[in-house]
């Protein structure tokens, strides 16, 4: 066991610290999700980060990135230092986190030249068109169709859960182009502008009260033929190049730890009937229980990191379980905060008794959303049992009447 990253990285960590010390006042507060509405400050900050290699670090220079060799430890050190300084690590969103790596892996040279630079600089924002009303867990059964008509695809159908579709400039979208092929081999990955005629976006308010999701309708939407990533019928593989990675990042242990510590701090301050919550043995035991679970997940993540650095170290199962366990744990941590607050835990929106700016309730619900999203936790259990434990798939049945 060697828990250090090695003294050769001390200098690098110092560089990051120095950068943060000199520049933290330029950072926007909080991570900006809706890229097209990103304020100028966020765009300037993003530019500064890219120039210094603290975001989009390994994206090649010719596409606007910093062009560093991939180095897991450097990436980790940057994340750690930004987190401990509580400074934004730049723009988020699915254009940067999902489309850009997909284009680097599967896109044409022209596509990379056209899309990556404006995307990472926040000038071009994206939404993801994957799920449909009839294709959720069984995503590959999607029916939104694209038919080639001359030099254009004609897209018809409906997507759902399209985050940020109301503000996005572009969409990357899975469509069925080969209706005769087996379901996984009939899908293609298209890119098109959201202001193309025939697109209608209807907001979908979620249980937290926010309308970040949408329903997106396509009626004879015409898309230039070459705006396809990968070959016709290859869309499933294109989408899957990065889907697994998304799952591991849905509930990271560093965020869970910081939320758990916030619960602990609150228990030292808040009182019920004059007694601090931390002095109540039932609440204290519940906190300690969560702390044990949190530790196990934190070290599980260290093991995964180590397996990326050391050849021959297997962490397959450790990776497979992170989405299931990470989201459940986070939901429990947020729920504990509500319970220690009692009725005050119900406060929402403009309530003057609000604690933590209302984040406990909204995160409690948001993580219930993540238990469902990104591959439901029941789908995760199928994956764990089939690919992790070698148990067979459930036999297919004819459609029930």
């Amino acid at each position, binding site marked *: 066991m060697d828990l250090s990253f090695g003294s050769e990285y001390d200098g690098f960590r110092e560089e990051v610290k120095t950068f943060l010390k000199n520049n933290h006042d330029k950072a926007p507060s909080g991570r900006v999700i809706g890229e097209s509405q990103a304020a100028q400050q966020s765009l300037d900050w993003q530019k500064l980060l890219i120039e210094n290699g603290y975001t989009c670090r390994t994206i090649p220079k010719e596409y606007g990135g910093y062009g560093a060799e991939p180095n897991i430890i450097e990436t980790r050190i940057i994340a750690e230092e930004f987190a401990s300084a509580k400074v934004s690590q730049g723009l988020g969103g699915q254009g940067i986190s999902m489309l850009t790596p997909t284009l680097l892996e599967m896109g044409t040279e022209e596509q990379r030249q056209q899309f990556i630079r404006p995307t990472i600089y926040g000038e071009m924002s994206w939404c993801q068109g994957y799920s449909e009303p009839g294709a959720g867990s069984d995503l590959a059964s999607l029916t939104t169709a694209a038919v080639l008509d001359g030099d254009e695809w004609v897209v018809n159908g409906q997507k759902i859960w399209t985050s940020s579709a109301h503000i996005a400039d572009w969409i990357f979208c899975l469509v069925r182009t080969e209706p005769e092929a087996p379901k996984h081999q009939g899908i293609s990955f298209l890119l098109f502008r959201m202001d193309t005629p025939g697109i209608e976006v209807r907001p979908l308010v979620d249980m937290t009260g926010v309308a970040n999701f949408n329903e997106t309708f396509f009626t004879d939407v015409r898309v230039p033929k070459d705006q396809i990533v990968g070959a016709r019928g290859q869309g499933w593989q294109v989408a899957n190049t990065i889907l697994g990675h998304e799952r591991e990042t849905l509930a990271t242990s560093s965020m869970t730890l910081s939320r758990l510590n916030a619960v602990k701090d609150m228990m030292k301050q808040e009182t019920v009937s004059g007694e601090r919550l931390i002095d109540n043995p039932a609440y204290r035991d519940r906190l300690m*229980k969560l702390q044990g679970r949190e530790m196990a997940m934190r070290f599980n993540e260290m093991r995964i990191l180590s397996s990326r650095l050391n050849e021959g170290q297997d962490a397959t199962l450790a990776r497979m379980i992170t989405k299931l*366990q990470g989201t459940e744990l986070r939901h429990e941590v947020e729920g504990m905060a509500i319970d220690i607050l009692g009725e005050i835990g119900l406060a929402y929106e403009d309530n003057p008794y609000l604690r933590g700016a209302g984040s406990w309730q909204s995160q409690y619900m948001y993580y219930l959303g993540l238990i469902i999203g990104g591959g439901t936790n029941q789908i995760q*259990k*199928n994956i764990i049992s089939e690919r992790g434990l070698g148990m067979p798939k459930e036999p297919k049945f004819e459609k029930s009447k």
Partner: protein
Amino acid sequence: MQFGLSEEQVLLQDNVNRFLSDNVPLERVRKYAEDGSDADIWQGLTELGIPALLIPEEHGGLGMTPMDAAIVAESIGYHVAPSPFLGSAIMAPVALSRSDNDYSELLGQIIEGKTRIGIAYGESVGNRNDAGVSLDNGKINGKSIFAFDSEANHYLVADKTKNLYLINADEEGLIRKELTTVDKTRKTVELVYQGAKAELVSSNSTVYDATLDIGRVMLAADTLGAAQNMIDQSVAYAMQREQFNRVIASFQAVKHMCAQMAADLEPCRSLIWFASHALAELPDESRVTACHTKAHLSEVGKSVSKTATEVHGGMGFTDLLGLHYWFKRIGANRQWLGAPELVREEAAKLEGLVA
């Protein structure tokens, strides 16, 4: 950075696993449940150097790490092997090698497998019933209950102020009586002291704490191994048991039970690695971590042992299958050296959350 087993540690685990697979099948465990002797098993583990693991090299031991020991504990748990490992290879060597007294000779006997040292910690961890000891002029009086290792030659006895004493099992004034528990893979005893001669090993509470912390991590590692075995057995059983013309492993109800067990247990492996590493390398964190590790493995072990039994259906409930030996082993590990609620409260105290 390397968070995981080294090549040497993988080799160590393979060696111990091979010995236990060959020599401690379920029939051997059943035989122990009847006649109560594990001498041949301990002899074999001694030949592999297990009692010498933690004993420093200057005393003739191997001077290996708590993480090495945790790997062995996991293997022993996996096979529900009867053995005096916890006392003789772990807690006693840690106490004796840190004592101000010179225990070179006794440590040498432990290494050779000639001496087994049991542990009587119940009173210091959480006094129950009318147990408790007092020492006066080198003579010990009182009683220890649920002391571990019925075949020990000596016992390491802790009192409620964290003093550690050593007493010879054949000492005049010591009455040893076996106490039946639900766990038939390790036998516990009642020790009644009537002015028996005892020697002070240490009155330094840090020595006591060191033995307790490592003991807890080893019990957690034993549970890790035992629970892993129950998952392996569950998956294997589900793959061959047919109902409704299908193997039951193809039903999502069964698959999800197995997936949940694996998802709960897999992070425990990393927790054990970290906790055992911390015992040697991270003194600021090691005590709290040992408590959380013991408590968390107790909880996960409880749910895995229940779920695994359910996956086996009616067979899981029978003696014939023998799955219950793992269930009971995990249940015993949960109570020994502090039940989860008590250990979590200790963690809270160590963190300064409770006065």
